[in-house]
């Protein structure tokens, strides 16, 4: 699977009008920071970030049909590894990404192996993913070396250093934008690959997939491991953006749920769904948080989740397959293509 060849083919096959639109959209995002203030930069950071982790989660659920409700685990593992290596050993997050990916993959492999080897499927598999995230939360809560429940902090340094993810909102804007684009291209390439087709077959009917020569266990394992790796990278970036890590927040199930809303609303198993979903949900959620703060005079935690729940119901009511499939139809893009 050559990413450049795939990219060339993607560009080659896409309708001209859609490409122009996409190019214009990207161009706007590239120059937008000129006019955006700090607050809006941070909103866009969150959009890009949620689009990235949504894309990663979508590999498991949207492509392979395996429900994970514990993706906060990989965010947290990535975050803690990146932060620890930087603060305690002075290792740059650019390098720490490698161990972060490897550890997340190892955890993904253990969860996948336990689930898929012993035939734990559907909601029971989802429970297993929650359990691992919860165990991690409790573990980190009691691990004093990483600050325990009191949290772990990354010192803010005056000198900007992009390689070490030290800098202002502008830096994180571009880092997250790059992450989102890379995640999209990676998923587009995977979707067209042999492995991607195996995932779709497993999602649709595992028994039939098996009869066509697909090793279902291997396909599912690949989905979990790749998804975990992508999520861990986003986790490192998020930790350096926040400058702090609290186990009760990092590994919280609310975080896991928040991560999966964008792809569900945008359209499960689609490439644009997670991005579209993030662009719809995050600004709405942020507006609501700001509004509540203004009206109530203080932040009410969880209010955005309540809102997300309501938005989810409304959107699923009108477009049961997500916004992107609906929009695609409106734009006149044939059903078989992205």
């Amino acid at each position: 699977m050559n990413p450049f060849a795939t990219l060339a083919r993607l560009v080659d096959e896409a309708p001209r009008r859609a490409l122009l639109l996409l190019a214009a959209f990207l161009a706007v995002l590239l120059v937008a920071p000129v006019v955006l203030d700090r607050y809006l930069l941070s909103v866009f950071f969150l959009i890009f970030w949620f689009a990235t982790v949504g894309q990663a989660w979508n590999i498991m659920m949207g492509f392979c049909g395996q429900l994970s409700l514990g993706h906060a685990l990989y965010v947290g593992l990535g975050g803690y590894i990146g932060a620890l290596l930087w603060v305690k050993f002075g290792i740059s997050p650019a390098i720490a990404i490698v161990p972060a990916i490897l550890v997340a993959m190892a955890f993904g492999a253990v969860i996948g192996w336990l689930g898929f080897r012993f035939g734990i499927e559907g909601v029971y598999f989802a429970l297993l993913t929650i359990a691992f995230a919860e165990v991690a939360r409790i573990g980190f809560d009691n691990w004093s070396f990483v600050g325990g429940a009191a949290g772990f902090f990354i010192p803010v340094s005056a000198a900007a250093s992009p390689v070490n993810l030290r800098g202002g909102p502008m830096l994180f804007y571009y880092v997250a934008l790059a992450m989102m684009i890379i995640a999209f291209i990676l998923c587009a390439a995977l979707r067209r690959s042999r492995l991607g087709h195996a995932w779709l077959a497993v999602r649709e009917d595992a028994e039939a997939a098996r009869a066509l020569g697909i090793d279902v266990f291997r396909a599912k394992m690949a989905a979990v491991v790749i998804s975990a790796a992508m999520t861990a990278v986003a986790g490192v970036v998020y930790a350096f953006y926040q400058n702090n890590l609290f186990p009760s927040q990092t590994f919280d199930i609310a975080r896991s749920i928040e991560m999966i809303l964008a792809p569900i609303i945008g359209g499960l198993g689609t490439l644009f769904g997670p991005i579209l979903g993030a662009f719809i949900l995050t600004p709405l959620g942020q507006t609501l948080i700001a509004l509540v703060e203004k009206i109530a005079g203080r932040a009410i935690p969880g209010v955005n989740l309540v809102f997300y729940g309501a938005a989810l119901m409304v959107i699923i009511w009108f477009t049961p397959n997500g916004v992107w499939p609906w929009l695609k139809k409106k734009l006149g893009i044939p059903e078989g293509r992205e």
Partner: protein
Amino acid sequence: MTPLLDVRGVTKRFRGLTAVDTVSLTVTEGEIFAVIGPNGAGKTTLFNMIAGAMTPDAGTVTFAGTRADGLPPHELCRRGLARTFQIVRPFPELTVLENATIGAMMRAPDMEAARTKAGEVLRQLDLWDRREAKAKSLTLPDRKRLECARALATGPRLLLLDEVMAGLRPTEVDRIVAILREINRSGVTILLIEHVMRATMALAGRIHVLHHGATIAEGTPEEVTRHPKVLESYLGAEAL
């Protein structure tokens, strides 16, 4: 003639019930071989043991010279044994072409080659015009042919067909009979499990008859239809 598939004394019990009782049969490379029998004769159980979906309690299955019983279905498929399901199992949300491409990718060097191979198979099974349709939108006859197309796309030496003609109208049966003949002529050995007598008689070179899980006859269609036990237990009073 070399035996492609050799089934020796396979038995399968479900609690007290013996669904398949020491059945042996040999399928030769290049032939069309049918297993028939009334409902509950153990046809599908026998089929599942050959296809790797069930492991026999006793006996062996040998495919292309190596032991095959107990191997998982995907491994059997890699060795050249492809199956269809009695109740068709297309990938509903994927297009007809994607369905066939997934079958073809096992032996194709890349996805482009898989798509090309899938296209060939879809043309062979009269599904090319429907290639962009989602599998869930197909009619039953189309789905049955898609089921065959997908299995055929894996490039099998032996094609196992589980009642592909059941539920089809006579004109549809004739169509699929013609297609299966064509597939067989291209070098694929076919083992079919059938209920539809007329088509089976027209298609198969040899027929194996099961009743209550046991073999009661085997031979050419003429021999089998003349066999007294077959007349008695399978065709019943209607034929006498």
